[in-house]
């Protein structure tokens, strides 16, 4: 059957695959026929993702992308690939006046510097095939709106938005496409948002025209689209997936 959305025959690197959006992206990409290389910091949780991947020949690498060493492990061990999905990301809910240089370094390091560096190093080693696709997980926070206590996270995602446009231009001659998806709040983020109460979450959900947060797989499906040949004329774009949140 003709299916331009298939990832069959493609090898895809997914960072941050031990939880949340990254985990879902890895699982759904495998279902679409891709061979995966997944990375994460936590061996136990990454093993759990690995077990859920359909098909054979997947690989996993334990690494902390906050360190040069961690990025080196990824870059050196990755074979020739057709796509990258940069899912590794963190957030810290801290009012701007309490932001410390350490918080800035940590958030910008993982959310912005790491995906940029890994992409650049893989390109310089010619490990990304022509017709390849690089997908960043951006956010409505920092591109269309923000949340209280979220200034540095927003800055990191705003930076991603600029980066993909420049990268898309510079990598066009190599026929490598660069895009981002721009999710609203996804159910997975809630676990890490310990400083927000359950009541506040329920209240926040009501502000979405579709009356709920997104599910990780709903982000994964958009990522699959951008990785696939169905999106072969899409580069430098941001795909908004927010249940209508930013319409209001």
């Amino acid at each position, binding site marked *: 059957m003709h299916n331009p959305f298939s990832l069959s025959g493609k090898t895809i690197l997914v960072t941050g695959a031990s939880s949340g959006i990254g985990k879902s992206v890895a699982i759904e990409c495998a279902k679409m026929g891709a061979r995966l290389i997944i990375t994460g910091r936590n061996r136990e949780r990454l093993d759990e993702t690995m077990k859920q991947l359909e098909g054979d020949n997947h690989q996993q690498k334990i690494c902390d992308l906050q360190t040069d060493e961690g990025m080196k492990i990824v870059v050196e061990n990755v074979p020739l690939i057709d796509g990258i999905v940069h899912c590794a990301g963190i957030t810290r*809910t*801290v*009012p701007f*006046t*309490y932001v410390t240089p350490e918080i800035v370094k940590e958030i910008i390091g993982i959310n912005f510097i790491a995906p940029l560096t890994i992409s650049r190093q893989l390109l310089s080693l010619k490990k990304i095939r022509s017709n390849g696709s690089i997908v960043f997980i951006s956010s409505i926070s920092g591109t269309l709106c923000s949340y*209280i*206590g979220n200034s540095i996270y927003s800055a990191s995602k705003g930076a991603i938005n600029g980066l993909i446009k420049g990268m898309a231009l510079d990598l066009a001659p190599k026929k490598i496409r660069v895009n981002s998806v721009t999710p609203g709040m996804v159910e997975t983020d809630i676990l890490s948002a*310990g*400083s*927000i*109460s*359950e*009541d*506040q979450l329920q209240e926040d959900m009501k502000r979405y025209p579709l009356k709920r947060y997104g599910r990780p797989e709903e982000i994964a499906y958009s990522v699959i689209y951008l990785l696939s040949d169905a999106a072969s004329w899409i580069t430098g774009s941001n795909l908004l997936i927010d249940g209508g949140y930013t319409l209001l």
Partner: protein
Amino acid sequence: MNIEEFIKNFSELFEEAETAAFTPSTRFRDIEEWSSLLALSVIAMVDQKYKVKLTGANILNSQTIEDLYKVVKTK
């Protein structure tokens, strides 16, 4: 740590409320200026000054400044 110092740190997060108006029995959520941003600021202040990680639930379950002080003290 003592409660006087805690109240001073707590009150300094507010822009408009008078410092003198804060006592151990002040029901902080009744203060007009109280907001979710102030709740986050309390969490950040306690983390910075007392090296204690409060949760949103800790704040939600506290009625007065003294309630909150006790949580910080026992954590």
